[in-house]
């Protein structure tokens, strides 16, 4: 049997009903979350009972630059135009009872993935300790849950904003910093800041997408699921009520298609979660385009996270291009260099050059590598900077050992390592 389709008018009713339902469910969900947090959560228990406390506002102009390469005041804003040693510290002396405030809102401009922003504070009770919370990575600042790290305790005597990384030719503009007590507005602001906080692809991105930073009040998926469940519960109740009073005009108009309303609610909640992901994806696309857009294949690889290793490999390939399928061994000196650089070099060198062995270099193993291979890569920043010192040491060590007289001759080097070819002469 074919179902009756919804007319356009019925669809509008369905869409409207699901929006009303979801709005009501959203209000209930937020109230339920606030109730849960202020009564059962360790971080926020009792924070709802502290009475009315006005937000505490500091404009950018009230801060002073404790460390920076260049700052200026523009109206009520403090503008950092240059960093000093990759950082700027903006400071303000104050006296704040931490129990009065649980959330912080920072209005700033110029925050980007290459520029980490932290809030630091010192307390009267622990004058030598420095505590901090990381700002969510949002373009115009955002909200911070100060209770997240369990260090927002005592009386704060000094607040600082630390900016670290690369301004990328832009400026960091601090407009204002505002402290809030627990409330629905700050809670919603913090949730959205946490869910929208951006962090570019990392190596573990292929394993999981968390969708929120560690220590977030609630995951967006859990929140959306609860939101949908409450909406469906409300729909069930409304349908039940409607079936009781069938005679009224209202009953004839509303909730004629509860199944369609449920489906629309599901669609809207799914869309809400998906929009968060699309926002991430869009920002990631911009990031990727900024890093690799408009470059040639070689330039793109040179712009990647291991550019120096790639360039060393490229030079090595050119240097060995006259040989027939050259192979080599790759040595590192410090255990900390065991991964990932050697594997990355192996990857860059293929298919023209094959790294047949990767190992740690020491005096005893040197002879083995020299007798077995024609080329040696040594991945070490010291060796890269001063390759002749290494070949002098190696040649000296080899002089008295082995059946062959072998000499290391430098082929290429850069700041991360060097490639040596091994010249052998049979002893008479």
């Amino acid at each position, binding site marked *: 049997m*074919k*179902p*009756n*389709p*919804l*007319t*356009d008018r019925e*669809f509008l009713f369905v869409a409207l009903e699901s929006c009303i339902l979801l709005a009501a469910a959203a209000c209930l969900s937020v109230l339920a979350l606030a109730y849960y947090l202020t009564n059962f959560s360790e971080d926020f228990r009792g924070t709802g009972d502290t009475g009315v406390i006005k937000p505490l506002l500091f404009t950018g102009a009230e801060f002073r630059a404790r460390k920076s390469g260049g700052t200026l005041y523009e109206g009520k804003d403090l503008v950092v135009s240059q960093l000093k040693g990759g950082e700027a510290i903006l400071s303000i002396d104050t006296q704040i009872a931490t129990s009065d405030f649980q959330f912080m809102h920072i209005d700033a401009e110029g925050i980007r993935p290459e520029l980490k922003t932290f809030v630091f504070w010192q307390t009267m009770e622990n004058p030598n300790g420095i505590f901090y919370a990381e700002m969510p990575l949002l373009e115009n600042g955002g909200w911070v849950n100060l209770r997240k790290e369990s260090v927002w305790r005592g009386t704060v005597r000094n607040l600082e904003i630390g900016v670290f990384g690369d301004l990328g030719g832009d400026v960091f503009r601090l407009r204002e910093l505002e402290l809030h007590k627990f409330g629905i507005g700050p809670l919603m602001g913090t949730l959205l800041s946490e869910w929208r906080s951006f962090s570019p*692809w990392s190596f*573990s991105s*292929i394993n*999981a*997408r968390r*969708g929120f930073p560690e220590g977030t009040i609630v*995951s*967006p*998926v*859990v929140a959306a*699921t609860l939101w*949908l469940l409450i909406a469906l519960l409300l729909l069930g109740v409304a349908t039940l009520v409607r079936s009781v009073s069938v005679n009224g005009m209202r009953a004839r108009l509303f909730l*004629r*298609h*509860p*199944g*369609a309303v449920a*489906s629309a609610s*599901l*669609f809207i*909640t*799914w*869309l809400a*979660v*998906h929009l*968060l*992901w699309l926002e991430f*994806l*869009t920002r*990631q*696309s911009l990031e*990727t*385009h900024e890093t*690799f*857009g408009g470059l*040639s*294949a*070689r330039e*793109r*690889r040179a712009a990647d996270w291991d550019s120096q290793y790639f360039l060393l490999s490229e030079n090595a390939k050119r240097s060995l291009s006259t040989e*027939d*399928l050259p192979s080599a061994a790759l040595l590192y000196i410090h255990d900390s260099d065991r991964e990932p650089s050697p*594997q*990355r070099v*192996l*990857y*860059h060198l*293929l*298919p*023209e050059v*094959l790294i*047949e062995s990767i190992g740690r270099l020491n005096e005893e193993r040197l002879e083995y590598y020299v007798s077995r291979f024609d080329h040696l890569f040594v991945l070490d920043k010291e060796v890269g900077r001063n390759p002749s010192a290494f070949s002098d040491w190696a040649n000296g060590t080899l002089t008295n050992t082995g059946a062959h007289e072998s000499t290391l001759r430098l082929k290429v080097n850069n700041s991360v390592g060097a490639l040596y070819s091994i010249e052998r002469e049979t002893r008479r």
Partner: protein
Amino acid sequence: MEPYTPSREKLEDKAYFLSSQLNSVSVLEVRAITTLLGIFAVLAPWCLGYWLIRRAKVRCDHWSTQLGLGWVLGVAIVTFSVVMTDVLGLGFRPFYLASLTGLASVLLVFVLGTESPPGKEAPKSTSLPTPQWILALNAFLLLLITVSLASVLQEVFQRPSYSWDTWHSWEPEGLQYIRNQALLASVQTNPNFGVVTNLIQVWMISITKTPHSEVNHLPWFAAFIAIVLLSFGHLRALYGNTAALFCCAAVASLPLLHTHAALAGYADIWVTLFFVASIAVSCRVTLLQKRAYLIVLLLSLVLCMLTKRAGLAVALALGVVLFGCFAWETLAKKSLLMLVSSAIVISGGFLAALLGFYSLDWNIPGLGQFQVSTSGFGVENLFYYNLKPAPFEAEAYFDALLTFDNWHLATPLFLASLALIATQPRLAHGERIPILAVIATLLVLVVYFTFIASGSATLHTGLDRSLLYVMPSAITVSTAILCKSLIASFVKT
């Protein structure tokens, strides 16, 4: 066959440094040529596969299903060509690859057949008539899908090989195949026995002539599209365009699926594709009446097994479910009883050996010893799993399924569909297979992460990636069940 000796001559294509050699050609032109070659390397086997599926006259299929299955056949053809080129010692030259692709296609023309034997027709579509709101909704869903695909494609084209195991394990192995012009890798980089990923990589490099080009990752994006198309086709046949587009948009919205397409190089998206394809083929028609479907199903399962170790387990779980379902539908009660009894005896014997009542140690010619004991089970030269039982990590599963944003709301949707199923007296053929396949695979994952890779569930490294195999199918079947209930409620009203 003569032992293979690599030589510079066999690396006939000096164009590995294409950009440096073609000094007269601008960087932009080189990139355009490489991109065009990459697109051709994907489209050629895909079109061939699509043509073969269409030629087999599987009439009940929508073009989307045919296209999705076409890419699976395309991958099978690519795999065959590369392996045969190696077996014949020809080197991975485009001419030989093309010739063997042609040969594979001719073989498939005969194997798949050209006519659909008389059998059950596919269920008629019960799509809703289309008033304007449906057209608007469809357009919006299409826009969502397009935005998702475009964002991922941009990443594929611009980002050099990024994800860890890609450049650490998979691609160095494939690049050694290219270096040796044979399926030989003297330096072991890949601990997984899977080969499909590397064979696809070899195919792409052989056509594009650039071993490190981002364009070589296009097949991963094609796998993503094929998964989306198969999800669309499945729902389109049952409930029309809007339901299909919703399902398609939901599958195309999965963040971890995006990640595996955008940061291409891992094998998991291929296991997902073969899983989805196997279900798409098997759940809509009575399989045994369609030879072409049976062949595609077998190819999907074999490719799934060859993709990575986890694919072997997934394919086995899927195979057992499919065999069980078809036996349930086709066998007489007596035979069915015998089959069930045999299955209980075999699995009971296996379990008893694992529990230590005795141990099994059989020699399988060509493979090695098949061993089952309290310490583990496996086949000597193929795989061996050590048993390390650990407590069930409920929190890790909760995070992976419900807390993390890998699947949006797919888990609640699937749970809701299971609840709806409980209220229905009898499941249709097209619902039973995907539901059971998803549940069986989830069970296999739980067993694996509890008894074999104990502890690794909490790291989220394998668990989330394993869930990727089943989530698109879980969404597809959940959407189908919700649509069924929705239509039933419409009929009532």
